């Protein structure tokens, strides 16, 4: 019972709106990622859930309990920060023990010197020691407990920060770009470890990132935010295959989706790409098109780059549609087993009309249903 329900949460800094009425239901035990470009309000939303910032309007419910006005420590949430935020003057053990000490020891028992003498403290400290060691063993940092954060590597600090969050078994974990300070290799490894941790703990995870690859690989569901608005919430493959907004289509997926303005195409090409009336942009993923002879292609152009990743090869093609002023850059995936291509080759590009996504002038998706109706 620790889902999160946000209803019409809004916040502005002075006259600039940061969040424009966000409503979102996060299920109990779900791994939900808030993703979007920097400045879209995702971190602010996370801080509002944590209770570090207050919303101007709207309500936050955690585990069926309205938490507006509750302090962070009373919300049963833990947070992992981008720069880890470990206390530099405390050992790893003390860093991890602090949240437990704050909850289990009375004010008098926490006093320096005097506290150590107070009756009843010893067994509580024993319990805390036991739990910290257990958590540390789980994260493979048991041998680091006596070190100071300054003596640890980035990956180790990250684990300590996770450990400090885990040790008190919160209902909800909030993570604010926790992987962005790690090097690329470690980041990929920590992604896997955090998802494994999520499966083992079964708690609700809310993960904030600007990296769509992190969002796609880790989450049960992804919430895409742009300019303070929630644009689409869905499972990663749903967002990839069925984006409801141009911005989602462009943000999700690497390499980026190919976008062809309808105005640049002549009548025949538009028909070949199954364009509907009202479509102002046609978009297709790199794998939704084939390379063919220049004359046979719906679009044609010369190759400007070949990106060989082993399992996939991405061809960068500068297409020249009929009504386009300059070259239109496209990226098309080809299988490594087929024909070899070189920079400068002139090729045709043939998008699969069934997989072309169409958007109106406002960037909204024109769905297949509407296509049939039209």
């Amino acid at each position, binding site marked *: 019972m620790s889902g999160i329900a946000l209803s019409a949460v809004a916040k502005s800094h002075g006259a600039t709106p940061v969040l424009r009425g966000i409503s979102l239901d996060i299920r109990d035990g779900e791994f939900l990622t808030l993703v979007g470009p920097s400045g879209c309000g995702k971190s602010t939303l996370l801080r509002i859930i*944590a209770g*570090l910032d207050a919303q101007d309007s709207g309500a936050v419910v955690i585990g069926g309990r309205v938490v507006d006005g509750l302090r962070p420590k009373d919300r049963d949430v833990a947070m992992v*920060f981008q720069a880890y*935020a470990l206390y530099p003057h405390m050992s790893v053990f003390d860093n991890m023990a*602090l949240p437990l000490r*704050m909850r289990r020891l009375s004010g008098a028992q926490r006093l320096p010197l005097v506290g150590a003498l107070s009756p009843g403290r010893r067994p509580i400290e024993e319990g805390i020691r036991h739990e910290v060691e257990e958590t540390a063993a789980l994260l493979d940092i048991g041998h680091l407990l006596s070190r100071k954060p300054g003596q640890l590597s980035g990956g180790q600090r990250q684990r300590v920060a996770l450990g400090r969050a885990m040790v008190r078994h919160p209902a909800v974990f909030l993570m604010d770009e926790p992987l962005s300070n790690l090097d690329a290799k470690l980041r990929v490894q920590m992604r896997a470890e955090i998802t494994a941790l999520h499966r083992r703990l079964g708690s609700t995870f809310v993960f904030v990132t600007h990296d769509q690859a992190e969002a796609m690989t880790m989450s049960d569901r992804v919430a895409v935010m742009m300019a303070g608005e929630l644009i689409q919430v869905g499972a990663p493959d749903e967002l990839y295959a069925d984006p409801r907004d141009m911005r989602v289509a462009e943000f999700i997926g690497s390499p980026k989706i190919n976008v062809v303005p309808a105005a640049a195409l002549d009548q025949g090409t538009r028909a070949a790409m199954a364009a509907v009336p009202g479509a102002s942009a046609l978009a297709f993923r790199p794998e939704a098109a084939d390379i063919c002879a220049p004359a046979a292609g719906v679009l044609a152009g010369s190759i400007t780059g070949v990106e060989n990743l082993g399992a996939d090869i991405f061809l960068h093609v500068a297409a020249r549609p009929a009504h386009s002023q300059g070259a239109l850059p496209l990226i098309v995936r080809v299988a490594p087993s087929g024909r070899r291509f070189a920079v400068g080759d002139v090729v045709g590009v043939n998008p699969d009309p069934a997989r072309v996504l169409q958007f109106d002038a406002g960037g909204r998706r024109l769905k297949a249903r509407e296509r049939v109706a039209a």
Partner: protein
Amino acid sequence: MRDLVRNIRVLRWRVLARHGALALTTLFALIPFVWMLSLSVKPPEEIFQPEFHLWPQKFNGLENYSVALTAAPMHLFLINGLFVCATIFLLQLLVCVPCAYALAKLRFRGRDTLFAAVLVGLLVPPQALAIPHFVLLHVFGLLDTYAALILPWIISTFGIFLMRQFFRAVPDELIDAARLDGLGEFEIIWRVMIPVAVPAIAAFGIFSVVAHWNDLFWPLIAIRSEELSTPALGILLFRDDEAGQFLGPLMAGATIIVAPLVVAFLFAQQRFIDGISFTART
């Protein structure tokens, strides 16, 4: 190659010139101290002799220093100085640290105005407040007590400013993490900010102790009783006697009260420089 040699030569001249200028100013700063040390070991008749000797012909150090230590209760002055300086510093911290934390890390209406007030406070010379303080202490009947020496100084705008600058450099995430871990604001100050700010506290401690150890102006106004005198005030007792007669012991006394500071400074030199560079940096 020739250019290089010339460059090195120019560089060497520059270094020499710079060190020469620094040595000259250092000399000017040190001369009074050397003078003091020299006088403190001279017999009275040598002090006013027309010819000058840095080292006395007749070494009178033992006599001068024993007079300095016995004629006035010098140990009492030193203990008073220690007690007053330590109490002032502790009470200053009690006020400064929470104020600085609030000004650096809490968001509330009027914060910037309050900080501007702190900056204005920095500009007010302490002498300007001497008479209001004197009147206030008189009203409360506290003149000529330890309280009179201590109370006017416990709110240090300089301390608030220095600590606030340091606290601003502490990442907000650390405070957010502490709030999620269940710490209240005062516990954040006690368990997170103070341990992180030890260098700043040390720097402020040096400034504070030096200022109040050396202060003559305020004790002169606030204190009448000899047994409450601070070292700087105690030294004046020697002056009251026949002119010249006690100059040697006077200088010996001055040497004794300056010595603890010089020793402390030598130990904490690096901290002192750090402390000055904080305020310049942020």
